């Protein structure tokens, strides 16, 4: 089958907010920009799933005509992001976030964003609406767009990135793109876990191929699990609805013994850890502990109900967030009936956000010439725990990465794809179609996903991590080469896609588990029951992972500190969490 060839200046991999913002920025700098999206335009990845909040300092909001807290400042935001991140943040990227965010808010307002509500520090709109606006803008400035096309591997020459090999999911055709610079904006790798929060396109190829091309991955052990995700009924599994309602209205969490298990914790940690987005790390950890102690329910979760909250109040808040008990196209009216009757629903943690990723500097360069990264796929501003806005992060980083990639592209030559390299990659990608092995990709995936949730979830320990790594090594040695699609057809062949994704997920899971095993402390969203202390003497370091001759090279490097000096000493995990919660600045607003 002939391989289609496309030429551009800046290739953007990923059609979420980071990718769109990068492509717009590159195009506005006068170079050609091609955005390749694995799913349908503006309807894939995490971005359209988000609530979504855009968070910045209230004084800058005020300056743009919104009702922000004038007593707020960029320094206060900086302080809050760094303490929420337990001091593991790259402070250069935090500075970049707080200083660039006002410009992005102005852009969004210029693009005509419809703001649903706002508080002293944030505006709120729907992720779907944001994506529609970015798509419209991208079209108007002339970004070239490809949808339902999956990038399989980066093409390189002399160490630098010169293009990428892609597969059209609907056609089964290969496309070789040649370009002068690449912005990786491929988001997270939620699909490596079950349950997860929904999107089925996020399987981590971008991070994995960047690592294969020589980039370093950092802090891969830090994975944010959102708490209070619906585990039942199957049709709603993965939905954030109880998380949102619990955050605003409150409610009660119980284990199988009927105990309100949060009551065993420090009341002030519980207060901040249930009424702010600190809930993700705190409640996920607390719920998972119950489940691991045998106090969970059928689906591995806990029970959420209305508790002490009056039905009137609950109903008022719920129908404000979910008008007519509709959340997008989900009809939640049966849950409304259950809430009124005081009946519980089973909820629990599920992967929502990846704090680690491709290591970049504050120009969003990966260290591999021509390769930039932005958004959730890179190691961003949030250190070991994210409370602030990932939506803001993807936009500020997309902008800067796109601008810098355009400047780089302007000064570098176009290199035609190396035909023998492309042929070798195509040959490897077609292996699952040749039908030589006998392992079903979908079944293999499901087993891996469930194990990832159990052993690399919100509560970890050294023995289980070692066990998980040994399991992944066996999968790598015995299964990945034998994944086979039952049908050799090329058009929308689900098993083929699954097989191509799986190796990437196994790569990232192994990197993450190895970093989690190496980090013998608890910090942020990484909680080790066998090392329940935050070790500020030994572990104010980012984990690093590259591919070496004999496998992965796991190491570390000092966290990037500019203006806020980290504390020292060893502190019990929950005491450190309390200290970090109490370090919040004195401004209004939820974040």
């Amino acid at each position, binding site marked *: 089958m002939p391989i289609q060839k496309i030429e551009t200046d800046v290739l953007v991999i990923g059609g979420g907010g980071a990718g769109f913002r990068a492509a717009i920025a590159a195009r506005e700098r006068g170079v050609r920009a091609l955005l390749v999206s*694995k*799913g*349908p335009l503006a*309807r*894939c*990845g995490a971005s*359209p*799933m988000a609530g979504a909040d855009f968070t910045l300092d209230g004084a800058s909001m005020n300056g743009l005509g919104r009702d922000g807290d004038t007593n707020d400042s960029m320094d206060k935001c900086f302080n809050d992001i760094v303490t929420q991140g337990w001091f593991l943040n790259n402070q250069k990227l935090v500075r970049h976030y707080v200083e660039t965010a006002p410009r992005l808010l102005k852009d969004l307002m210029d693009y005509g964003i419809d703001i649903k509500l706002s508080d002293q520090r944030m505006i709120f709109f729907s992720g*779907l609406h944001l994506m529609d606006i970015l798509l419209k803008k991208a079209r108007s400035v002339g970004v070239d767009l490809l949808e*339902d096309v999956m990038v399989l591997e980066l093409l390189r020459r002399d160490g630098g990135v010169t293009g990428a090999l892609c597969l059209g*999911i*609907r056609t089964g055709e290969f496309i070789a793109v040649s370009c002068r610079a690449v912005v990786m904006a491929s988001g997270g790798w939620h699909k490596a876990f079950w349950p997860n929060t*929904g*999107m*089925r*396109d996020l399987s981590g190829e971008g991070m994995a191929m960047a690592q294969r091309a020589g980039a370093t991955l950092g802090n891969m052990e830090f994975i944010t699990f959102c708490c209070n995700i619906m585990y*039942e*009924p*199957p*049709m*709603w*599994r*993965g*939905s954030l609805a109880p998380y949102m309602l619990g955050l605003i209205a409150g409610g009660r969490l119980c284990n199988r013994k009927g105990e309100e298990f949060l009551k065993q914790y420090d009341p002030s940690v519980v207060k901040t850890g249930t009424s702010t987005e600190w809930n993700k790390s705190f409640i996920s950890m607390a719920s998972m502990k119950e489940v691991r102690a045998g106090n969970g329910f059928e689906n591995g979760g806990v029970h959420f109900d209305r508790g002490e909250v009056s039905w009137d109040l609950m109903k008022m808040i719920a129908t404000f967030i979910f008008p007519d008990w509709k*959340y*997008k*196209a*989900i*009809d939640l009216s049966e849950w409304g009936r259950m809430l009124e009757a005081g009946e519980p629903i089973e909820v629990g943690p599920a992967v929502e956000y990846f704090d680690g990723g491709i290591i970049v500097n504050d120009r969003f360069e990966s260290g591999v010439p021509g390769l930039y990264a932005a958004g959730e796929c890179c190691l961003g501003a949030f250190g070991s725990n994210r409370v602030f806005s990932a939506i803001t992060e993807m936009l500020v980083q997309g902008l800067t990465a796109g601008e810098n990639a355009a400047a780089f592209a302007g000064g570098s030559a176009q290199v035609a794809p190396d035909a023998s390299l492309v042929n070798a990659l195509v040959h490897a990608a077609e292996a699952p179609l040749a039908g030589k092995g006998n392992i*079903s*990709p*979908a*079944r293999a995936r*499901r087993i891996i996903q469930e194990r990832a949730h159990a052993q690399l979830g919100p509560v970890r320990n050294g023995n289980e991590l070692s066990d998980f790594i040994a399991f992944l090594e066996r999968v790598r040695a015995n299964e990945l080469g034998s994944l086979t*699609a*039952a*049908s050799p*057809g090329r*058009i*929308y*062949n*689900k*098993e083929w*896609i699954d097989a191509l994704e799986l190796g990437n997920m196994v790569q990232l899971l192994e990197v993450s588990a190895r970093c989690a095993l190496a980090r013998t402390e608890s910090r942020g969203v990484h909680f080790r029951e066998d090392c329940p202390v935050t070790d500020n003497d030994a572990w104010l370091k980012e984990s690093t992972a590259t591919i070496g001759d004999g496998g992965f090279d796991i190491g570390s490097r000092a966290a990037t500190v500019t203006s806020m000096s980290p504390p020292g000493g060893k502190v019990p995990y929950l005491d450190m969490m309390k200290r970090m919660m109490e370090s919040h600045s004195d401004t209004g607003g939820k974040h």
Partner: protein
Amino acid sequence: MNGDSIRVKVFRFDPSRDREPYYSDYSVPFEKGMSAMDALDYIYQNLDGGIAYYDHAGCSLGICARCTGRVNGKPGLICQTAVEGDIVLEPVNKDKVIKDLVTRRGG
């Protein structure tokens, strides 16, 4: 009905190989509160890896609106159509099929 099975009949057509569309029949364990997408996921993972339905970038939560199809003749989102008994799954427009339940854009 937990513990029981349902019959799921799925429209199949690969225009590059089949002369005519046909239907495949599967027996799927019933779970209370399952959607037609859950039934397809079960079939794909356990019974027939060759089946195609839109999910490579689906949200399964009624957000992306890309999983349209007919459940017992009625058009809707496959991931948010509750299943209570035997079902027939078909594409909304059989003339636009690229494979099984997946149709060309605009289909």
